[in-house]
C-alpha cells in the first residue's frame, strides 16, 4: 500500500489515526489477556487469573468508546472509499476483539476449578495452543497496523493449524476422561478452554478478513478458507 | 488571578478601551466625515449652478411668455380691406397693407397731434405691419365680416413692450403735489406751458438735477390720458411740453411723474411713443397677456410676432428622420456585433472606430453632410431630410454603444437556456435577448435622440440656419430647428430677442426633459428582473 497522504481536513486524519491506535491498544490488552490466562492456567496462579478477568472491563470500555467515536465520525465526516472501509473495519474489529476479551476472561475463570486436578500434560497442550492463538492475534494486529494484506492472508490461512491443534486437544482430553472418570469435571473445563482458544482463532480469522477488505477492498469468503475436517464421534 | 490578567489585556493592541486605538478611531471617523462633506459640497456647487441657470433663463423667458397688445375696433371697409373684391379671399389674406392702414387710421384718429407734428411714422411704429397678418387671415377665412367692426388685439411693438415690462431703464415713479394752475407763457420767444403749485415739484427739481448731472433722461408728467414732458423745473412751477392729451387734464389733481434715467436718443423708444402707449393704457386699450404667438407663430424679423412653431415642426421632422436612420441601423448593428460577430481583428477595429465615432465633434458630421448629401447627392438645402440624415449618423454610435451595453447586460444564462431547449441563434436573440434588452436599448435611443435634438453645429453647415417664416409641411421643405433658432435669435440686434431666446431655450429644455422623462419611464416600466 502506498503511503497515506493526509486529509485536507487534518482533524479527520487525526481522528482516523486515533481510532486505529485505540484498536491496537484494545488488541494489545486482548493479547495480554490470552497470554496471562494461559500462564495462570499453567502456574495455577489465581491472582493472575482474577487480574486477567478484570482486564475484560478495559476491553469493553475501549469498545464502547470506539463505537461512539465511529458513530460521530460517520455522522460528521461522511467517510468515503478507503476511509469508509477503515472506519467500518475498525467498528467490526472492535467487536471481534471484544469477543476475544470475553473468551479470554472465560478461560481465566476456569483456572480456579482446575486447581489441584492432575491434568498437567493436557495443560501443556493448552499452553502450546494458547501460544499459537496469541501468535495469530499478534500477527493479525500487525497486519492491521501495517495495513498488510499479505500478512492478513497468512493469518487467515494459518487458522487451519489452530483447528488441528484443537482436534488433537479434544482427542487427548477425551482419552484422559475415558481413562479416569474422576477427571471428567476437569476435562470438561479443559475442553471448554480449548474450544475458547479455537473460537479466538476464528475471531482472528475474521479480523484478518476485515483487514484484507480494508486494505484491498475485496472480500475473502469463509467458504474458501482451508479447514481441518471436524473430528468424528 | 484578575490582577495577573488585567495588564495582559491592556497591552493587547485590539483592545476596545485602548487610548491609542481610540485616537486612531477618532482620526478615522474625522476622515470619514471630511470625505462625506467634500461629496456634499460638490453636489451643492453643482446644484447651485443648476439653480442659477434655471433662474436666469427662466426669469428672462417669463418676460417673453407674456406681452402687451393694443385693442382695436376696426371697421372692415371693403374698399380698404378687399380692393380686389370680397370674393378674392387669397388677396384679402395677403392684403397686409390694407389692414395695416386701418390700424394706422385708428391710431391717427386717437392721437391727432402726431399728424400735426409730422410724427406719423413714430406713431405707426407702435404696431408692426405684420402684426395684422392674423386679422387678414381671419377675415379671409370669413369674408362675411367685411363691413362689420373687427375687435382685434395687435401686439405692441417689442421695444414699447419691453419698456412697459420695465426692461428699458429703471424707472422711478411718484406723484407731484397738487397743480393749482396751468398756463401758457411765452419765454425767450418760445411757447411754454407752465404748471404751478406751491411746493408741488420739490422732488421733480432734485430728480431733474440728478438726470442732468448723469447721463440725461426724461421726466414725464401724466394726468390720466394727458402726458407732458418736463423741460424745466422749480419747486413751485414746472415748464413742460405737452406730448398728448390736453392741458386741462393737469389742472387740479396731482400729476403722476415718471423719471426715465436714459436719454431719448439712447433708447429705441421715443418719449412720444411712451406717452402714446401710456395714454392707450389709460384708455384701457392695452392689455398684458400670454404670448401665444411665441408658440404658434413661425419665425419673423419682428420679435413681437416671432414664434418657435416652425422650428419645433422642423425639429420634429428632423428627429423623425434621425430616428428612422439611427434606431433601426443602430440596433441591428449592435445585435450583429454583440451576438453574431466573431471576435477578431476586424470586429475589434470596428468596435474601436464606433467608440471613436461617438467622440467625433458634431461639426465634422455637418461638414460630411454638406459634402455628401448636399454636394454629392444633391439633396435640398436647409431641409429636415438632410438634417435628420446628419443627426442620424451622429446619433448612430451612441445608439450602437447603448444597445450593445443593454444586450451585454442580459444574463448569459438566458441565452444558454434558450439554446438548451433547441432554439436557434436567431430565435434566442429575437425571443429572449432582445425583449430583455429592449428597455435599455430604448433608453439609449431616446437619450441619443435628445442629444441630437440639442445639436446645432452640423445643422448650421447644411443650411438649416436659413430664415424660415413658414411652418414646413414636409421633411424636404426649408426648415430650421430649435437650437438653431436659439442661436439665431441670440444674435439678434434688438433687445427683445433676448427674452425670446430665453423662451425658446425653455421650450427646447422642456422637450429634452420630456424625452429624458420618457426614457426613465420606459426603463422603469419595462425593466424585468431575472
Amino acid at each position, binding site marked *: 500500500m*502506498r503511503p*497515506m*497522504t*493526509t*486529509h*485536507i*481536513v487534518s482533524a*479527520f486524519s487525526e481522528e482516523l489515526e486515533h481510532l486505529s491506535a485505540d484498536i491496537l491498544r484494545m488488541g494489545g490488552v486482548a493479547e495480554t489477556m490470552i497470554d496471562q490466562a494461559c500462564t495462570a492456567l499453567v502456574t495455577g496462579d489465581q491472582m493472575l487469573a482474577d487480574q486477567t478477568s478484570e482486564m475484560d472491563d478495559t476491553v469493553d470500555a475501549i469498545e464502547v468508546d470506539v463505537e461512539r467515536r465511529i458513530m460521530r465520525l460517520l455522522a460528521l465526516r*461522511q*467517510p*468515503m*472509499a*478507503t*476511509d*469508509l*472501509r477503515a472506519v467500518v473495519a475498525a467498528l467490526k474489529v472492535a467487536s471481534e476483539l471484544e469477543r476475544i476479551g470475553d473468551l479470554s476472561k472465560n478461560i481465566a475463570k476456569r483456572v480456579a476449578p482446575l486447581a489441584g486436578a492432575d491434568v498437567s500434560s493436557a495443560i501443556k497442550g493448552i499452553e502450546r495452543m494458547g501460544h499459537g492463538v496469541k501468535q495469530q492475534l499478534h500477527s493479525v494486529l500487525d497486519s492491521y497496523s501495517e495495513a498488510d494484506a499479505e500478512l492478513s*492472508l497468512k493469518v487467515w*490461512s494459518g487458522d487451519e493449524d489452530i483447528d488441528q491443534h484443537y482436534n488433537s486437544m479434544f482427542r487427548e482430553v477425551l482419552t484422559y476422561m475415558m481413562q479416569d472418570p474422576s477427571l471428567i469435571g476437569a476435562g470438561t473445563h479443559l475442553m471448554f478452554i480449548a474450544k475458547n482458544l479455537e473460537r479466538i482463532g476464528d475471531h482472528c480469522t475474521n479480523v484478518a478478513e476485515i483487514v484484507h477488505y480494508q486494505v484491498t*477492498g*475485496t*472480500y*475473502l*469468503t469463509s467458504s*474458501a478458507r*482451508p479447514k481441518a475436517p471436524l473430528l468424528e464421534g | 488571578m484578575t490582577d495577573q490578567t488585567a495588564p495582559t489585556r491592556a497591552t493587547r493592541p485590539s483592545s476596545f478601551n485602548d487610548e491609542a486605538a481610540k485616537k486612531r478611531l477618532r482620526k478615522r471617523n474625522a476622515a470619514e466625515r471630511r470625505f462625506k462633506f467634500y461629496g456634499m459640497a460638490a453636489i451643492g456647487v453643482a446644484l447651485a449652478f443648476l439653480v442659477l441657470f434655471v433662474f436666469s433663463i427662466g426669469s428672462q423667458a417669463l418676460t417673453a411668455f407674456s406681452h402687451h397688445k393694443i385693442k382695436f375696433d376696426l371697421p372692415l371697409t371693403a374698399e380698404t380691406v378687399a380692393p380686389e373684391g370680397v370674393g378674392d379671399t387669397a388677396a384679402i389674406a395677403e392684403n397686409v397693407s390694407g389692414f395695416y392702414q386701418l390700424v394706422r387710421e385708428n391710431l391717427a384718429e386717437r392721437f391727432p397731434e402726431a399728424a400735426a407734428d409730422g410724427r406719423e411714422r413714430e406713431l405707426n411704429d407702435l404696431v408692426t405691419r405684420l402684426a395684422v397678418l392674423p386679422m387678414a387671415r381671419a377675415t379671409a377665412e370669413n369674408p362675411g365680416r367685411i363691413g362689420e367692426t373687427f375687435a382685434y388685439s395687435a401686439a405692441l411693438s417689442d421695444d414699447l413692450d419691453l419698456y412697459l415690462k420695465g426692461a428699458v431703464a429703471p424707472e422711478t415713479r411718484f406723484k407731484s403735489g397738487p397743480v393749482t394752475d396751468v398756463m401758457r407763457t411765452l419765454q425767450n420767444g418760445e411757447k411754454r406751458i407752465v404748471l404751478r403749485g406751491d411746493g408741488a415739484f420739490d422732488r421733480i427739481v432734485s430728480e431733474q438735477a440728478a438726470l442732468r448731472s448723469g447721463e440725461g433722461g426724461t421726466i414725464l408728467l401724466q394726468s390720466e390720458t394727458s402726458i407732458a414732458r418736463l423741460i424745466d423745473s422749480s419747486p413751485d412751477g414746472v415748464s413742460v411740453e405737452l406730448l398728448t392729451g390736453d392741458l386741462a387734464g393737469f389742472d387740479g389733481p396731482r400729476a403722476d411723474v415718471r423719471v426715465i434715467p436714459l436719454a431719448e436718443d439712447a433708447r429705441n423708444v421715443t418719449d412720444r411713443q411712451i406717452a402714446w402707449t401710456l395714454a392707450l393704457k389709460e384708455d384701457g386699450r392695452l392689455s398684458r397677456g400670454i404670448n401665444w404667438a411665441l408658440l404658434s407663430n413661425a419665425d419673423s424679423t419682428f420679435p413681437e410676432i416671432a414664434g418657435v412653431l416652425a422650428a419645433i415642426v422642423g425639429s420634429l421632422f428632423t428627429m423623425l428622420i434621425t430616428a428612422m436612420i439611427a434606431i433601426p441601423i443602430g440596433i441591428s448593428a449592435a445585435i450583429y456585433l454583440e451576438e453574431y460577430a*466573431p*471576435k477578431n481583428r476586424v470586429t475589434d477595429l470596428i468596435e474601436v472606430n464606433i467608440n471613436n465615432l461617438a467622440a467625433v465633434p458634431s461639426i465634422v458630421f455637418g461638414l460630411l453632410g454638406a459634402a455628401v448629401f448636399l454636394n454629392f447627392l444633391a439633396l435640398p438645402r436647409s431641409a429636415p431630410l438632410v438634417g435628420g440624415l446628419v443627426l442620424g449618423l451622429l446619433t448612430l454610435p451612441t445608439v450602437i454603444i447603448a444597445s450593445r451595453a443593454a444586450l451585454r447586460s442580459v*444574463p448569459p*444564462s*438566458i*441565452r*444558454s*437556456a*434558450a*439554446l*438548451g*431547449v*433547441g*432554439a*436557434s441563434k436567431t*430565435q434566442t436573440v429575437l*425571443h*429572449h435577448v432582445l425583449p*430583455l434588452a429592449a428597455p435599455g436599448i430604448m433608453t439609449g435611443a431616446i437619450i441619443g435622440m435628445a442629444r441630437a435634438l440639442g445639436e446645432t453645429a452640423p445643422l448650421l453647415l447644411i443650411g438649416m440656419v436659413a430664415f424660415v417664416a413658414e411652418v414646413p409641411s414636409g421633411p424636404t421643405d426649408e426648415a430650421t430647428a430649435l437650437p438653431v433658432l436659439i442661436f439665431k435669435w441670440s444674435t439678434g440686434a434688438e433687445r427683445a430677442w433676448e427674452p425670446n431666446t430665453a423662451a425658446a431655450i425653455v421650450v427646447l429644455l422642456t422637450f429634452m426633459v420630456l424625452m429624458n422623462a420618457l426614457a426613465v419611464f420606459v426603463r422603469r416600466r419595462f425593466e*424585468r*428582473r*431575472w
Partner: protein
Amino acid sequence: MSETENTRKDTLISQVTVTPSADTSGYATKVDCKHINVSYGDKQAIFDISMAIPERSVTAFIGPSGCGKSTFLRCINRMNDTIESAKVEGQIFIDGEDVNSDHIDPVLLRSRVGMVFQKPNPFPKSIYDNIAYGPRIHGIATSRTDLDEIVETSLTRAGLWDEVKDRLTQPGTGLSGGQQQRLCIARAIAVSPEVILMDEPCSALDPIATARIEELIDELRERFCIVIVTHSMQQAARVSQRTAFFHLGKLVEYGDTETVFTNPSDDRTSDYITGRFG
C-alpha cells in the same frame, strides 16, 4: 514456504471474488463517446476521453473544478459550438448516430438532448410559456390542447404541477429557487428528449430543494438517460448508478457508483473522494 503452500495460496487468491454491485450492465449504451478531445484556443481541456453512458440510468461526473467534466458534458449536446474558440474532436454516438457529423443540426440535437443548468434560469415569461416554448419552436404541439397537455405532463413529471397549476400565467421567475430549477427540468423534458444533461443542477439550492431534485432525478431515470455533473460527491453517490471521475481533462475512473465510492481503483479517485486532494 514450501512449493505446495505457494500453489495453494495462489489458488486461494484466485478464488477471492468480488460481489457484484447494483448492476447497470443490463442497459444498452445510449451515448457512446469515442476519443473526445476539446481545446479552447491553444489550451486543451479534454484529453482523449472515451466512455459509454448507459440508457435509463444516472451517470454522474465528478472531479475538481476545471477538470473538464462540464466541458465534456457540453460536448454531448454540442453546447460548445456556441463558444467560438472551442474545438471538439472525436465522435459521440447517440443510438449509433454521430452527433458531430455535418448532417446533424445542433438545434435538432438539443431537442433530443435536453440540458439543465447550474443556476435556475427560467425565461422571464409565464410558467406556461416557459414550458411551451420548446414544443412551440420545434413544432411538437400543433394545437392549443396539445400544448396544454404537454405543459401539464411536463410539470407533473417534474413534480411541480400541483404547486403551480393555479398560477400558470404568472412569471416563472417568481418561483422559489428549487421550484425554478424543477421548472427548468420540466422545460427540458417538454420537448421529449432522450438524454438530459444536468450541469450542477443543485449547487444553488438549499438541502430540501436539493433532495426534491434528487428524488425527481431518480424518478426520471425510468424514462431518460441522465448525465449529471456535480461537485457534491454525496450527491453523486445518492443519485447515480455510474460515476466518472475526471481529473485535469482526463477520465481517471469510470465505473459503478458503489465501487467508485467504496473501492476506487485509482489513487487519484481515492484521494479526491476521501478529501485528500492537493
